[in-house]
């Protein structure tokens, strides 16, 4: 893709700004996009959200870099970035962002055949089909390649049986991308990548309650599920290569800088009071808030620097180090927020806790997952040590 001229960028920025201003429903300003991505029922019930999704779908801006025949706008990465920045600037969110756009879409673009792309990408681009990720199993978490879910070639279809676990959103998803075992003799070399319709007979998704009270987590059972032959992505036994690529996309999106984060200082002033010099009235907590805010700023600068350095853009191994930095900074921030709120940050339900306090408490509990999913903190460090730093292992 050709780099755009600077003048073109500025023009495009103006165009994007004007279009977003005219089309983003003001009622959704500063609403966390996750609300609608994580809860299909809330999404279906919200008219503003539906309108916003439809407008972005028509424009192809939910996945701006995808070709128009797949539902995108055929723009360059640079254009896409500008759209993202302008969206963040008005407190908006991408209504199309999902497992489909972040993970499966880019993977299908590289490994899918044309029929699969045409069958799935337009529905991902319009957020009409929700996807979930069926990788982990009870005995295969960090060691994903130890997975056991069986897939047998029955001539005219595949027959899948086994159990997946920690499948986010499986109870609300329409489709699932699943790693299955097609060869029991080889570990990594015996895995295939399959697209499975969640309506298929023999699939059962049971929600699991998380410590944050959310139930987006499921265990998924496959009891002799028939899957059409054409749903295999890439070659048989090539699934590991595809999965590794998909996990890079996942890590990349997890380490991506989201909209700027509200500073905690004003809240700390309210909850803790200020000393005679107007400083947060707890030097210890103040010092830790400052350290977290500075690390956050340095992190943002790092992401910008690495993006500028990587001329051709694609995800790199350095992403593992970034993911750990990001999860660490953001988890610590969640801890600091409830500490700032003190005993009011410990409420679960009812009065006199405010909605913001209760949300902060749950967000803190949920944040513990950032250093577990998408490859745990420890496993990311192993990747950095081995692949980026060249240490033996």
């Amino acid at each position: 893709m050709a780099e755009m001229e600077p003048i073109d960028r500025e023009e495009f920025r103006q165009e994007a700004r004007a279009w977003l201003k005219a089309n983003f429903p003001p009622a959704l300003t500063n609403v966390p996009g996750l609300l609608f991505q994580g809860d299909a029922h809330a999404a279906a019930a919200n008219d503003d959200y539906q309108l916003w999704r439809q407008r972005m779908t028509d424009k192809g801006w939910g996945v701006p870099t995808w070709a128009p025949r797949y539902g995108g706008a055929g723009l360059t990465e640079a254009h896409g970035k500008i759209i993202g920045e302008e969206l963040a600037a008005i407190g908006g969110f991408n209504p199309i962002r999902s497992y489909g756009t972040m993970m499966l879409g880019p993977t299908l673009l590289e490994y899918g055949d044309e029929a699969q792309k045409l069958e799935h990408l337009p529905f991902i681009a319009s957020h009409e089909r929700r996807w979930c990720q069926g990788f982990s199993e009870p005995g295969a978490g960090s060691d994903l390649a130890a997975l056991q879910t069986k897939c047998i070639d029955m001539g005219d279809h595949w027959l899948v049986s086994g159990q997946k676990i920690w499948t986010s959103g499986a109870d609300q998803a329409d489709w699932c991308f699943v790693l299955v075992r097609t060869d029991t003799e080889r570990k990594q070399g015996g895995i295939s990548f399959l697209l499975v319709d969640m309506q298929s007979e023999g699939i059962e998704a049971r929600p699991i309650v998380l410590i944050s009270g959310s139930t987006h987590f499921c265990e998924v059972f496959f009891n002799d599920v028939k899957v059409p032959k054409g749903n295999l992505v890439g070659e048989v036994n090539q699934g590991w290569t595809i999965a590794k690529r998909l996990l890079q996309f996942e890590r990349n999106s997890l380490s991506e800088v989201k909209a700027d984060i509200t500073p905690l200082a004003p809240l700390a002033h309210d909850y803790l009071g200020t000393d005679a010099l107007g400083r947060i009235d707890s030097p210890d907590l103040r010092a830790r808030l400052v350290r977290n805010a500075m690390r956050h700023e340095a992190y943002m600068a790092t992401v910008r620097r690495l993006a500028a350095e990587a001329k051709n853009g694609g995800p790199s191994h350095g992403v593992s180090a970034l993911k750990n930095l990001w999860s660490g900074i953001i988890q610590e921030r969640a801890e600091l927020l409830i500490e700032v709120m003190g005993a009011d940050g410990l409420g679960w339900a009812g009065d006199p806790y405010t909605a913001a306090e209760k949300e902060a408490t749950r967000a803190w509990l949920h944040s513990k997952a950032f250093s577990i999913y998408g490859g745990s903190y420890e496993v990311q460090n192993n990747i950095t040590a081995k692949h980026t730093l060249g240490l033996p292992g």
Partner: protein
Amino acid sequence: MAVLNDEQTMLKDMASQWVRDRLPVTALRGLYDHGGGGRCGSDGYDADAWAEMAQMGWCGIIVPEAHGGADFGYLSLGLVIEELGRTLAASPLISSALVAASALRLAGTQEQQGRWLPGIADGSLIGTLALDEGPHHAPERTALAATASHDGWKLSGTKRPVQDGMIAHLAIVAARTSGAPGDRDGLTLFLVPTDSAGLERQALDQIDARRPALYRLEAVNVAVNDVLGEVGKAADLIDAIRDRAAIGMAAEMLGSATQAFDITLDYLKTRVQFGAIIGSFQALQHRAAELFGELQLTRSAVETALAAIDADDPALPALASLAKATAGETLHRISSQMVQLHGGIGMTHEHDAGLYLKRARVAEQCHGSTAWHRERWARLNGY
């Protein structure tokens, strides 16, 4: 571990056994609602288990013999509290047998002690301290007003969170008889029965399924001889009570941290990934070794502080802050690592890790947070 005498060893063993049988973590889970918070209608404790604890004499451990207690010392009470902390056992033992009993021991008149201590010692009466008025521990900011009336005092204002406030019969309420919020002078403690006219209570639904309370007092009448200590001069007394409370919390946190560590260590020894027990990965071995080291510091800080109360050590204030801050930091780290090292299962409500994580943050805020006690330690030591 501190050097214990035979009686203390027996007490500790008995507490350890009883807590595991009677109030294992599953008992706490029973108080929980979906994923967090307290079950509707629950008081955040088990009244039958409390009665058994009283039967065993735990409520009277620091109460003088003359008032029905055993006068067996804070270190002994700390041993029991630590065992309760191991299984996150929910009970008002700290609020009543430690905090309220300490307040009466430190400043109660013969008459006040005679009236309240026997009930506390036999568990029939639950006492608590109603000190804070906002989300952060800040005794000198007390605003709840006590105005003199013809036959005593009238109290008006709010208190929150009051630990075990829904089940308490007696609240020791900090009020301002003069001065302005922020002043150390002008604070007074009052002994207030919670069924007093004008006192209204609201249960707070907290992440650890315990139920502290919000108290609203409107012209609550208190008699002259219900003042604990001296009028207007309670600041030092409040410090002394809070130090004992903080040390008690630290003992509970030591127990929780020890158990959270043990459970995690067991998991490291059994969970297999990459064809190996995950505890064989050096990164996790070093993590476990570091947490073990932190636990050693915490045990020493807590036991030293408990012994310092019994010895009337003048270094007690600094030792109390040392214990609470160290325990706070250690339990914070271990409870977070408990989730992290369990991976996905640690994020589920079904697993115990989340319960330790939630109780850890509540305990951390109780009777002065880690940050608060570090500040205090800094001031006491000229930093």
